[in-house]
């Protein structure tokens, strides 16, 4: 940091203490499947998957458990071989601890792969859309944490004519090192995956951006990418939130993504390096996404490190495998400390988007009572989006959510920089999450009200119609009755006449 930068505070973002080592340097461990696995049906962005197995059914590792449902969704596969023990609700890996639908698998311990995997010796011989189809069949989602179905992103990038593929190796979150570890261990596989993604999207070049606090990963990736001119590996300054899509694209390409648009607007698409590996496994070997590398770290963890964990393993099993606690944790977090979710307890499953499990000791949390804002402006300087967090929070505190939206609440990426630097310990992100959630609920209520308004209108029309019909029927009846009466009267007169005639006729007789 230069003197001018220090005196005038010119840069966005923050430089948190990264806590990445020694976990990043520990050898990767592989966790065997525990006895029971709880595979959530909603572990991707979009609609939950629809189960395609029955309770009691025997499945092998990689067999389909649930089909995607709707336009944005992803398939889910068995992480090991065993028997489907239940399909029901389990606590979700989410701060609320609310239930989520899941397939419970009793592992048989054999860990047998399914025979139905479609392997291809040369995936580059396939059509690009076929690669997307295989990625979709393998249930690959974004491994950075956003969990957007990757196949959809590949296909839509191709349609949008994306020219540059940005590979996110930033891993700017403190504590996490799974991407770092993956790049060190499997650089060749990642580069192969990147080339497959280039092929599938039709982009001409890929840039891998890696923060300069991971020199080993940069070296490994550069060595692996040497043979391919279309893939370049770039070192970027370590700064949080460098791994955020908008910030990464701007740093690597100088292009600014317009608000409310996808990166495709400026001709780029961003994928995580972990996704590249999953894409390769899907395209080359037909292997679905059934396990992932994640970081177990935090002050309360005895042996921090990176572990390959089957999807659906309980956090408590993972922590036990990692070696347990060295102290009672103050908080369990899934993901990084800046944007990760606090867990209500350890009996929640690992999902495809879990990049880390942190057991933070009380001292690391620095929890304090919220104080009054002293308008120091640290949050304004830290905000990577150029927002005014203090003003937004002030409006939300005063129940003026619309005022907060006017200040740019919808542009907030919830990176947590503002709350991290806040001297008064104001939970700014919580204010924004509360406001966004409340506004979304209001929008839903409005949609609901519009729908019910239509129903009420339809009912009104129907009642009017019924009344009209009733009136018509009544009128018709009346008319008929009158007609009948008339006819009767006419008949009477006629008979009378006839009688008369008869009488008259008969009289002479």
């Amino acid at each position: 940091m230069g003197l001018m930068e220090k005196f005038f505070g010119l840069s966005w973002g923050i430089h948190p203490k990264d806590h990445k080592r020694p976990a990043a340097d520990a050898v990767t461990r592989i966790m065997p499947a525990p006895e029971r696995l709880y595979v959530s049906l909603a572990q991707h962005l979009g609609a939950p998957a629809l189960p395609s197995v029955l309770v009691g059914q025997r499945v092998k590792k990689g067999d389909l458990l649930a089909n995607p449902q709707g336009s944005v969704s992803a398939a889910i596969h068995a992480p090991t071989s065993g028997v489907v023990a239940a399909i029901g609700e389990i606590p979700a890996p989410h701060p609320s601890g609310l239930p989520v639908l899941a397939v419970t698998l009793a592992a048989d311990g054999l860990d047998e792969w399914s025979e139905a995997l479609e392997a291809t010796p040369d995936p580059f011989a396939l059509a690009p859309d076929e690669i997307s189809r295989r990625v979709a069949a393998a249930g690959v989602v974004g491994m950075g944490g956003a969990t957007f179905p990757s196949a959809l992103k590949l296909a839509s990038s191709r349609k949008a004519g994306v020219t540059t593929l940005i590979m996110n190796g930033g891993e700017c979150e403190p504590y996490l090192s799974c991407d770092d570890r993956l790049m060190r261990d499997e650089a060749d596989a990642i580069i192969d995956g990147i080339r497959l993604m280039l092929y599938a999207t039709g982009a001409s070049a890929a840039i891998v951006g890696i923060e300069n606090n991971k020199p080993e990963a940069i070296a490994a990736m550069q060595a692996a990418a040497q043979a391919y001119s279309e893939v370049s590996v770039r070192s970027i300054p370590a700064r949080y939130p460098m791994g955020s899509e908008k910030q990464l694209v701007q740093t690597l390409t100088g292009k600014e993504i317009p608000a409310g648009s996808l990166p495709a607007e400026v001709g780029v698409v961003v994928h995580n390096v972990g996704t590249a590996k999953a894409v390769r496994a899907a395209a080359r070997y037909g292997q679905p996404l059934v396990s992932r590398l994640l970081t177990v770290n935090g002050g309360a963890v005895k042996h921090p490190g990176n572990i390959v964990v089957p999807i659906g393993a309980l956090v408590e099993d993972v922590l036990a495998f990692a070696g347990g606690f060295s102290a009672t944790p103050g908080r369990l977090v899934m993901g990084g400390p800046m944007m990760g979710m606090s867990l209500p307890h350890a009996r929640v499953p690992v999902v495809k988007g879990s990049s880390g499990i942190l057991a933070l000791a009380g001292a690391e949390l620095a929890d304090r009572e919220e104080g009054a804002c002293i308008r120091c402006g640290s949050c304004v300087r830290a905000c990577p989006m150029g927002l005014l967090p203090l003003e937004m929070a002030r409006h939300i505190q005063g129940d003026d959510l619309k005022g907060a939206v006017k200040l740019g609440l919808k542009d907030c990426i919830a990176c947590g920089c503002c709350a991290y630097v806040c001297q008064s310990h104001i939970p700014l992100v919580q204010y924004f999450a509360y406001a966004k959630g409340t506004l979304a609920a209001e929008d839903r209520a409005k949609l609901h009200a519009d729908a019910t308004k239509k129903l009420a209108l339809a009912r009104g029309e129907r009642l009017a119609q019924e009344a009209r019909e009733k009136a018509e029927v009544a009128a018709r009846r009346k008319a008929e009755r009158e007609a009948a009466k008339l006819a009767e009267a006419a008949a009477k007169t006629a008979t009378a006449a006839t009688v008369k005639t008869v009488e008259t006729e008969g009289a002479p007789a």
Partner: protein
Amino acid sequence: MSAADYTDYQAARAFASPHAHGGGEVRRTMFLVLTALVPATLFGFWLYGWPAFFLWLMTLISVLLFEFMSLRLMGQKNAGRALGDGSALLTGWLLAMTLPPWSPWWVGVLGAFIAIVIGKQVFGGLGQNVFNPAMVARVALLISFPLQLTAWVTPLPLTPLTAPGFIESLHITLGQTPVPDAITSASLLGYAKTELSRGIELAQALTTSHAPQLSWLGARAGSLGESSALLILAGGIFLLITGVIRGYAPLGVLAGALIPAFIAHSIAPESYLDARSHLLSGALMLGAFFIATDYVTSPTTGAGQLVFGLGVGLMTWIIRTLGGYPEGVAFAILLMNALTPIIDRVIKPRILGRTWSGRPIVSADAGKEA
């Protein structure tokens, strides 16, 4: 602990991210600002003797007292802890530094009341006030008691025998002994103003033997903290280096006051003081580094702070040169405090992906797809 102890973990509620904190504390910030004030204050004690120390002590004690009482009145349970954030202490300290050092005790107490109760607590306490409390008190005192608030004394360091002793100083602070005329002295700004109004040109007025002198170190008539420009500057640089303040507001204040002073002096040296006199007189340096940088009452963006500082500097120069008061920093700060909400509303950072007016930017590549 064994691996099985994870079951002990029980989260009481949903915690929002982030789960880490940078470690910044209001208390630490306030402590750093107080530290930065120490050298200038100690020098002031040496320069003006015991009365200055008594006034300073009186102000600080009453500030803490009023803050404590206000917090209790507002139903704050742990008022003692809230007191520990140091904000009231800083307000009192800054106020004491702008008062004439030999003022009677009630000046300090009344100032503390105005600063804490009217300037800060009625708005809701820390962070809620719109005007700088110390400057509110300073201006209110100046308007109410112009005589006491302009009774500057020539420096009488503790060491020489002519300086008042401990007991004698107590009498001065308690207001029982009036400050002898022989040792009162006008500040340079006041002197220049008086002489100009008498029709005497500056060049002539400033060369006479009884004209107040200037020095960077601050051996001149003035208030506790205003005297030593050098030590105040050192404190300011300390705050810049520790990252407590940023350079925008101080730069703005100095530029806003010195540029017009320099221009006016170049054009008509007989009626306008030079930039150096402005820099080393009165509270300009203190205002630039310690008061214009007050978080609560100044804009939050860098550009806003620059505008704020320029406004303070310019107003100071205008009031000093053209106004009825010899010193204008306090008024200038209050005036710009009043404009701060408007500055904050007009000057905002640009949101990433949006134009300055808030519409999404149009990307250069957008046309290509069509």
